[in-house]
């Protein structure tokens, strides 16, 4: 926590990110190479789904990161509104499109997977739909933060939205129990059960860590860009 506070200052953040980014990108690249090997070559094809099962190694981590990303937006929103951390706004601006991107990847891989598995690109299943709603929440956040002439106001409006929107996340999750009438196919339940085979579990977790690092890396880089852009705008207007 003390560390986070330390980072609240853009200049200090800049120094921190410049120190971290090179090693982080190296680590991510390495992890990705190994992960791709594990996921694409080393793990066996599923006896029922064949090679399409490999979609899961991207699909599931993306879903997790998309949800974590929105929680991050809410946290950043709170720290902007309560403690007025200037960096929080810039980081939220940087993180929203990244989260939306992972959300889109989850939707796309899911619907590509759905075609062979369910015979349709899309069904109105509760889980799928809740993911789609999360995507809309992201879109709303992005649109709102860019809708003002004065970027600071967009930041604050979007922060308010993120704080209210995060209440929606658990509700959407619980609604699965209430609303779902079309159940996930048996293959998913079998895979998702406790007896998941290590040959699948290991690459899955590996890819989850890899994509998490990628997420962090992208947010750091984009935050750097946002800092530059904000400085440039201020300088332009002062001139």
């Amino acid at each position: 926590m003390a560390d986070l506070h330390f980072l609240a200052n853009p200049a200090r953040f800049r120094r921190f990110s410049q120190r971290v980014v090179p090693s982080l990108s190296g680590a991510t690249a390495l992890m990705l190479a190994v992960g791709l090997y594990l996921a694409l070559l080393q793990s066996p094809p599923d006896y029922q789904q064949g090679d399409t099962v490999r979609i899961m190694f991207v699909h599931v981590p993306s879903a997790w990161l998309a949800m974590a990303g929105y929680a991050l937006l809410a946290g950043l929103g709170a720290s902007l509104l309560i403690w007025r951390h200037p960096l929080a706004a810039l980081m939220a601006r940087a993180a929203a499109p990244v989260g939306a991107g992972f959300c889109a990847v989850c939707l796309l891989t899911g619907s590509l997977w759905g075609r062979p598995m369910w015979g349709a690109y899309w069904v109105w299943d509760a889980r799928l739909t809740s993911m789609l709603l999360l995507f809309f929440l992201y879109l709303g956040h992005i649109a709102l933060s860019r809708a003002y002439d004065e970027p600071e106001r967009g930041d604050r409006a979007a922060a308010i939205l993120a704080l209210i929107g995060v209440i929606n996340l658990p509700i959407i999750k619980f609604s699965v129990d209430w609303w779902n009438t079309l159940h996930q196919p048996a293959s998913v339940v079998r895979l998702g059960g406790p007896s998941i085979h290590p040959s699948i579990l290991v690459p899955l977790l590996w890819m989850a860590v890899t994509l998490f690092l990628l997420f962090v890396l992208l947010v750091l880089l984009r935050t750097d860009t946002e800092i530059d852009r904000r400085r440039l705008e201020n300088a332009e207007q002062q001139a």
Partner: protein
Amino acid sequence: MSGFAALVARDLRLVWRRPGDVAVVLAFFVVATTLFPLGIGPEANVLARIAAGVLWCAALFAALLSLDRLFAADFEDGTLDLLLLAPWPLELAALAKCCAHWIVTGLPLAALAPLLGVAFGLESSVLLALSATLLVGTPTLSLIGGLAAALTLGARKSGALLALLALPLCVPTLIFGAGAVEALASGGDFGAHFAVLAALALVALATTPWAIAAALRQAGE
């Protein structure tokens, strides 16, 4: 508190001066709902099956359609400044505005819905449930819509941005509202759905006024 009542009274009086605005919202509700029997054909079982969902969706749109000017009118003629300058909490003012909106849309919608339900062939017990869910659910729609209206106030966008912000947030209410009615029709657990609906309304009541007030303050800058 007297300021709260005064604000509700003022907004109701403004609506009273233009009764057509409420009429348009209600007409929209009716037209949007009757479109479905027209488009889908008169198969009674299909209609009864989708009735709750269609009525709830139409109610949601009707509520949103009338929301986008909730604060914008005050913003443009300068009365928002007077609200911001009133010596009592802006949160109460936000609540008062949403309350007035609910009285002129949510309430009539809940009253009108059973009539339309008859046209869809719903049974009388279900009609009652429909009305009850709308009564409990529409305040949430007014509050969330009010938040979206406040957030988009100084923004460069039109009513559509408001809808984009509000609709995903309204989805839980929609699911549990329509779900409750359907649960009753198909012998499911109406009470549980209804309880969630009420809980959603309470959560909205407890959180949105603060968020709206914050959004209005920064629109005034």
